């Protein structure tokens, strides 16, 4: 696994991480001091007692020992506190940073990346950073501070023991890398097996109803059992090898302590070393290894967090590499309350060639224009071009002025896509989206025009439109667009398949409503292939794969 110990982008994108590292370093220095003091005081008390000092003589030192123990406990507590706060702040910073980056990258980016994936990254993915901050990073800081100082103190006390430590210390990372390298292929296969098993289980649970329809449920139980057994055997084969890395780590650490102890013991016998130095060094030797062992033990947990952070960094990097948006104030068409929308040889091109044949058409106020054509002829792409959500060639002009590609102010345009895309809140709040204040009379009127007189404006809408049926959600979304044309005097109302979830009666009432909107001077554009809609059109734009006829 190729994981850098600390990604510099973390410091760039999350300012709190710097604070976290600095505080961690201060705590690390204090921890080192308390480790040294603790070892020295224990040595002092034991050797003093052996030399014949009484409890009374040594009591001050024991008192100091208890005080250092308290200090050490406070430092442990502070370290956890700093880690937890640091993690919370860094997560929050990255989360909002990614959100803004996604906003800059736009809906086209999300469509490609899958918004549920990004949401998971911002939720559970960020939580994977908890272990990174609470277990891995503090130990990494301690490795950098405690280990060198402890080794230095041992070196000054007894150079031979320091040599033992210095020889075995590098063995730990070397062994871990070597074994990791040797088991990489096996581990990759293991991940595949693991993934297969897990997705197989999800697949079985997801398809349980289907399995029941075909009377296969009990056979699946047997199959599950045999797959899991296979998985266990495979996994254990891998674990036998991959546990070797922690075996090497433990072995190096404990053998080194053993070597130090035996060497000190033998030198004490011939009198070439004093007990004080010997005991002091024995107590310090394990402390030199402890942080490194912890880093090794938490390496995998940390790698998961790093992977999540890396996904976040990729999005942040993408957004950084975008050119700065030039302001498009000249083309702000907010004040215009009516005008012709014209598209001239418009074709969407994401960089891999035109998506569909170029379209030329005009959409006039007071008219209901229907865009029809089989799927795949670029209906939705044309809308994306008009909305400025997709790069296109050709020109889109409203009231004889060019419409910017990435307009922030689209007051002249009201739109609803194929998905209702309702937010959590009441129906009113959804209908009045983008307005500073909810005009309840206008909400009522918009709902009526959208053939939704029966929907209560105070009804609560849950995540992804929960609480409404498909047809109701569609009509609330339509009312939202109609509200905007009424409230902002938008000149163009753009609707993508507005009647796909509606029955014929409701469809007819909606078309009546759209007629009223058009008559008030709005250019109403409806993408639909339903005959009932086409029959009510003032103008029809038929798209086909080759040629485009504007009638």
């Amino acid at each position: 696994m190729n994981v850098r110990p600390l990604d510099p982008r973390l410091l760039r994108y999350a300012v709190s991480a710097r604070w976290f590292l600095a505080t961690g370093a201060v705590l690390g220095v204090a921890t080192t001091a308390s480790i040294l003091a603790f070892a020295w005081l224990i040595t002092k008390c034991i050797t003093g007692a052996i030399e014949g000092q009484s409890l009374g003589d040594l009591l001050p030192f024991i008192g100091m020992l208890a005080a250092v123990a308290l200090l050490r406990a406070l430092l442990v507590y502070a370290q956890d506190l700093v880690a937890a706060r640091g993690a919370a702040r860094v997560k929050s910073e990255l989360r909002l940073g990614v959100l803004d980056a996604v906003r800059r990258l736009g809906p086209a980016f999300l469509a490609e990346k899958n918004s549920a994936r990004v949401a998971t990254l911002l939720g559970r993915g960020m939580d994977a950073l908890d272990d990174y901050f609470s277990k891995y990073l503090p130990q990494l800081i301690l490795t950098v501070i405690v280990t060198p100082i402890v080794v230095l103190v041992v070196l000054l006390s007894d150079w031979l023991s320091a040599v033992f430590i210095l020889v075995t210390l590098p063995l730990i990372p070397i062994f871990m890398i070597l074994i990791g390298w040797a088991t990489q292929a096996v581990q990759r296969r293991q991940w595949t097996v693991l993934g297969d098993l897990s997705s197989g289980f999800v697949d079985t649970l997801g398809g349980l109803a289907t399995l029941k329809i075909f009377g296969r449920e009990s056979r699946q139980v047997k199959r599950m059992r045999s797959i899991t057994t296979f998985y266990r055997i495979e996994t254990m084969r891998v674990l036998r090898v991959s546990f070797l890395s922690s075996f090497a780590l433990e072995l190096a650490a404990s053998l080194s302590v053993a070597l130090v102890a035996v060497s000190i013991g033998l030198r004490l016998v011939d009198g070439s070393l004093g007990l004080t130095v010997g005991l002091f060094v024995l107590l310090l030797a394990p402390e030199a290894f402890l942080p490194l062992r912890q880093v090794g033990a938490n390496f995998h947990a940390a790698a998961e967090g790093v992977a999540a952070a890396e996904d976040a960094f990729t999005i942040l990097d993408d957004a950084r590499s975008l050119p700065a948006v030039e302001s498009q104030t000249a083309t702000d068409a907010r004040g215009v309350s009516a005008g012709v929308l014209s598209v001239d040889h418009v074709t969407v091109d994401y960089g891999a060639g035109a998506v569909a044949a170029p379209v030329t058409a005009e959409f006039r106020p007071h008219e209901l224009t229907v865009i029809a054509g089989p799927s795949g002829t670029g209906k939705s792409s044309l809308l994306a071009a008009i909305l400025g959500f997709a790069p296109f060639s050709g020109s889109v002009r409203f009231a004889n002025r060019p419409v910017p590609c990435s307009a922030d102010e689209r007051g002249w345009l009201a739109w609803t896509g194929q998905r209702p895309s309702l937010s959590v809140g009441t129906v009113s709040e959804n209908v009045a989206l983008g307005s500073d204040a909810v005009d309840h009379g206008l909400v009522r009127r918009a709902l009526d025009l959208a053939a939704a007189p029966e929907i209560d404006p105070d009804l609560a809408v849950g995540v992804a439109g929960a609480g409404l049926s498909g047809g109701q959600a569609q009509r609330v979304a339509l009312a939202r667009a109609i509200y905007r044309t009424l409230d902002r005097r938008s000149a163009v109302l753009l609707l993508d398949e507005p009647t796909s979830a509606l029955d014929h009666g409701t469809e007819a009432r909606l078309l009546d409503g759209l007629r009223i909107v058009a008559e008030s001077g709005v250019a109403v554009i409806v993408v639909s292939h339903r005959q009932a809609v086409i029959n009510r059109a003032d103008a029809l734009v038929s798209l086909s794969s080759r040629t485009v006829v504007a009638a």
Partner: protein
Amino acid sequence: MSADQSVRRDVRSILRTALPVTPGGALGVLFGIFAALCTVALLATSAYLITRAAEQPPILYLSMAVVGVRAFALGRAFFRYLERLASHDAAFRQLESVRVDLLRRLIPLAPDGLGRSRRGSLLSSLVSDVDELQNLPLRVVQPLMTSLGVAAIAVWVVALLSPTAAVGLAIALVAAFLGGTVIAARLAASAERAIAPRRAALLDAVLDYLSNLDVLIAYGAEKAGRRRVEAADIALTRALTARSAGVGIAAGALSLFSGLAVAWSLVAGIPALGTGDGHLTGPGLAVIVLIPLAVFEIVASVPLAASAWRQVRSSAERIARVAPADVPRELPIGGGTAAILPVTAAPVLQLSQVAATWPGASEPSLIIENLRVDAGERILIEGMSGAGKTTLAHILVRFLEFDGEYLLAGQNVRDLPLDQVRRVVGLCEQVPYLFDESIRQNLLFARDTATDVELTAVLDRVGLGEWVRERGGLDARVGERGALVSGGQAQRIALARALLRDFPVIVLDEPTANVETDLAGRLMADLLDATSEDGRTVLVISHADIADALVDRRIRISDGVLENSAAL
């Protein structure tokens, strides 16, 4: 029994399944204790070796200690390795029973007992909860048993040298155990209760913002959307920071008790040193002072075990809520035992005075006064979404229990085993489930004796022959949850499965609901055409209009009531 009691009972039974009481599991604990004992013994023997050596005895007297130091150093790594292997093997064995157990629980519940919305995310979180159960033996029981075993042995060894020191060590250990489990658990639990809803609120806000980003931008409302996310984020971060005050208490307390135990050992040991009745030697003092240090290093895993336990328990609770052992009474259990003996003269389906309720709903979602379907009839069930059309489909295939009478070819369905009813009545679901396998595998499970020629023939019949050939034949994969297949193709594959299974009665539930509208008419015609042979009975459920020529009869469901029908 109250709902809470039955959840608690389910939680206990789930946890029992997750905990291996096998020789492998016991061996794991044993190796763990050996490894931990080696750690303690390594430090104790080293201290003994050094302090004894300082007395400059003949080197022979030290050789045992030298061998001991080396042996314990090797032993620690060695036993730790064995412990890991044994305990992981035992945990994986248990995973097997846990998964199978869950599957058995879910079978009677699927699909209608699993909630009607967000079923996908519910199931995937269920899978991660099941994986979490592995931590019960590995991260909860193993470290707790090891710590307890080592602590007991250490207290005993210290007691041999100095009973007074042993009492102090025992008190410190008990305090550490209590602090690490009970107090930390109480602190964390109250903080976690505050955090869970905020975390959920943040996720909802993020999902809301991201999935509606295009609309938010088009309406100039993305700033307001971001403010909502930000507010949720601030609330969560504040709760997390508040919790952080409690996080380190257990670890800090452990460190403090370890230091105090060392100090106490000195206070207890020093006066006994060299005096006649105490018998405590210099090396003995070193041993009783350093043992607490090493023991507390092992006991440090107790707070982690406690927090792992909280997670395991809440996973078990979630599983118990989603998959209760008691099947809700709205779902059929078991069915009857009678053999299928169709009465040829009787209508194939006859329902009278039937009412069915979804689990958790207060009122029936469909009432049928009378429905009679004769063999070979083709019927359209129409109505608005939410009117109760899917309820009818689920009554017919016995996914939902009902009040009233339902005769299948003259026999009361309650007398028939569920799988026998499902041999006669088949359902093509609104969202057909395709397994992440090849097209062949997705068809074969309907009839595993089918040859490739039969499979190709049935694919031709549902209008997919050309499409499958273009994709390289029956081995083409359909992707995760049929991701590589469009909604219409999925419906065709589902119908092909139903035709292979040769259900005499096929119910098509909204086959065009997830199909682009301009393709829907063609798909509906193709599907009905494919079922037109061999006098099969077909019920099509749809909110869309269907040409009169395609069906014999229309039945309307509105607001949960099936309106009485008449032949055209």
